[in-house]
């Protein structure tokens, strides 16, 4: 297991390096004169004139500053690393809670559908998940806003949750203050991502339930709950772990839209602003962060998978 972990880690490092290099190349080979300023600003100051360094030298400088955690300086946003890191907690909170909700929704609905395959309930849920799966995150967000804020108000009640922002006006006094602001965005993300997970879970469960060992488990007189969850779901969910690794970038891009809808000052919104503001430094920093997040997510998924499924551990050991 340890050598497996080390090997995966090595692959992740190479991948991260690749991601960074692709980011560099995109900017270096992009047309326009932005690039030299942008890549050289990694040194801490925007270079105005002087001889342009060659590709190799610029790349070396850039990787060097990257290793020091320096993402350069943007005229618009200042120190890019600082600018993005200040937003990271909000995006992380949203992504993690959205992911948890997505898994709970998705797996719950998927298992229910598989257990009731072919019934009207199954078909209704299939319709629902297809709609939610193809729905843009902002649309789901607006619907939720209507359901939890505007509808209750029309009925004379107070809104159930705050609509936008990350903390109460004037600032949070404790971590708990952030939670109400997380509810609608996380629900939005959870529903959109959960729909995909539900569709996957339903299919995987149906496949798992058709396996011999599920029939064997039934033949042993185990209760349907045990059969569904211990024997069916457990094996059906193993691939979900790696699916979640793949989902991580989807989760983050989902966060871009959700943060925009709910005016949450996270990395996603910062990148959205950076696009409109032609703030290449921030855009590149954000892309790097998302790329690294994807690599780390896949690494975690790989390790979890190896830990959860004994076959993988053995396969790589053998």
């Amino acid at each position, binding site marked *: 297991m340890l050598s497996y972990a080390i090997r995966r880690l090595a692959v992740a490092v190479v991948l991260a390096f690749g991601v960074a290099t692709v980011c560099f190349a995109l900017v270096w080979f992009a047309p326009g004169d932005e690039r030299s300023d942008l890549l050289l600003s990694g040194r801490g100051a925007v270079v105005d004139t002087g001889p342009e360094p060659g590709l190799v030298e610029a790349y070396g400088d850039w990787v060097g500053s990257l290793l020091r955690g320096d993402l350069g300086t943007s005229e618009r946003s200042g120190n890019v690393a600082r600018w993005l890191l200040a937003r990271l907690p909000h995006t992380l909170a949203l992504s993690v809670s959205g992911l948890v909700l997505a898994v709970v929704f998705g797996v719950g609905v998927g298992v229910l559908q598989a257990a009731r395959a072919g019934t009207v309930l199954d078909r209704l849920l299939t319709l629902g998940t297809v709609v939610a799966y193809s729905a843009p995150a902002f649309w789901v967000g607006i619907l939720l*806003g209507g359901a939890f804020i505007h509808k209750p108000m029309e009925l004379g009640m107070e*809104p159930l949750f705050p609509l*936008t922002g990350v903390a109460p*006006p004037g*600032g949070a006094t404790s971590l708990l*203050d952030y939670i*109400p602001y997380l509810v609608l965005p996380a629900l939005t993300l959870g529903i959109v991502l959960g729909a995909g997970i539900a569709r996957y879970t339903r299919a995987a469960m149906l496949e798992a339930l058709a396996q011999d060992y599920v029939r064997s488990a039934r033949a042993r007189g185990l209760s349907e709950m045990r059969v569904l969850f211990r024997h069916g779901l457990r094996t059906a969910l193993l691939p979900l772990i790696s699916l979640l690794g793949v989902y991580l970038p989807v989760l983050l891009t989902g966060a871009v839209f959700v943060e925009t*809808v709910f*005016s949450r000052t996270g990395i996603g919104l910062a990148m959205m602003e950076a696009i409109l*503001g032609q703030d290449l430094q921030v855009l590149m920093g954000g892309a790097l962060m998302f790329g690294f997040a994807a690599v780390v997510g896949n690494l975690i998924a790989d390790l979890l998978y190896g830990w959860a499924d004994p076959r993988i551990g053995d396969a790589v050991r053998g």
Partner: protein
Amino acid sequence: MAHLRPIRALGTGALIVVAACGGDAPDRPELPPLAVSSDVPFCQSVAQAVNAYHAEQSAAHPRPADPRYGGTVVVAGGGDFRGGLNALTTGDQTDQETELHLLHVTLTRFAADRTPEPYLAESWTLEDDGSGITFRLRDDVMWHDGQPVTAEDVVFTYRRAMDPATGFLNVGWFQFYDADAVEALDDHTVRFAFTPHAEVMDPFSNMAIMPQHLLGDVPPAEMGGHPFGTDCPVGAGPYVFEAYRPGDQWVLRANPAFPEDLGGRPFLDRYVYRVIPSSSTRAGELAAGGVDVALGLEPVDAEAVAARDGVRLAAFDSRSFSFIGWNPRLPGLSDVRVRRALTMALDREALLETLRGEYGTRVETGVPDFHWAYDPDLQGPPHDPEGARAMLDEAGWTDRDGDGVRENQAGDELRFDLVTNSNTERETIARIMADELGDVGVAFDLQVVDNQTLGARLGNPTNRDFGSFILGFAPDFNINERDFFHSSSDATGYGWSALNDPELDRLLDTLPRIRDRDQARPLWAEYQQRIVELQPYTYLFFSQRLNGLNADLAGVEMDLRGELINVPAWYWNPETN
């Protein structure tokens, strides 16, 4: 039955619940002591001094028993104040108003009739020949760190603003000022010297005074990115800076030490400005109670607000007009016939109706109909697509290769970049333009960027490669378009449309020097006529500003002067709360 409102549990929400339950006088909790903090070295000592002075003054001036005092107001606008609240470096409408009316003070301020009234200056004397003015300053206005505001601060502010190295955008105000125009006669007396000119009082209500004791050592060129603006802006106005969360919110605190004569301590303990880029989200948050004031709504959202209980719409004339700017440096657009044809091809009446409905007025120049210099007889180019086609033919632009886009003899297409910021209204204008001007054979490549980038792109004198742009602009009451249209402005920040027209130059040179309005009016009519002939812009409309307000928020005045002019007098209505 009252539910706790989670959104405002920290601020006004709690008191609303109490009041709604019992009908007692509102019991608004005192806020914790001001705690400005920063990890920037410059700001650490500043923050300490501000916190200490605020604590001392809060103790010395406890909140009056008047039930109008206390509470928080949350104001939502579309953009962040990226440059911070340093009046020497910023130019956006809402942050300018925040500087002028909340954080900082000005020498004078506009009364309701738009005449100047005393503010930091308790009196002034304009010299008879119009070549100078002397202000007598109050001695009871303090910086938020406890230092007195003196004549030195005024001198510092105006000198920095006039210094080209600072890059102050409205440097045009000082066109007639002498090189060493401003001097302190004593601690509380300042004299400005200038060549006699029109509307001399105008800058004094528009230039916020900045603290010389904090910024005196900052080189003018470094003013822009200085942390003072974002991490620890110190003013002398009725509100004190508390916190800034980039991209999210600015938090200001009532200044307990603000002089009684100038309104004293503001009613509201806390003023929060939140950044919510989308108009419909601002309106939604207003309806949901998450914000109390939603600034700059689009008409469709404004109508939704107007139809709702518990909120109200404040619609008022603003000084802001929308236009399509043409870059006369480019071939094609250098020809006045082409510019005129572009205006004629566009159905501006229908555009106004589509975009603003009743909340706007057509214009033909930057002189609005509420301005004294406005010429009511002015006629702009008519909507006449046929005429436009003929005019383009005559200018030598015809569709030679049959692809629907006109070319000149050299085969260059009549095709331009069209730059605008991300904003539903402007993007709609762009689409309609592409459609209607496409009909007469003119093509556009649309580029949508954000506010700041648009400003930077247009304002860069060294690289004016754009063909056209859609922009809004809010002129001062003292209209002076020299920065835009005078040939000498060609290489300056606002000189995106410099026309190099001797006739217009003459008017721009003359008008600001005429101190008598009656004498100036005929020339103003001539000026407006000349603008219509030259069509530097295709003028679209003056917009009404549409702000949504919580119906319980009382004392709010919003008009041509601005929307934050009397924030210190806003209060939560004790009757309904």
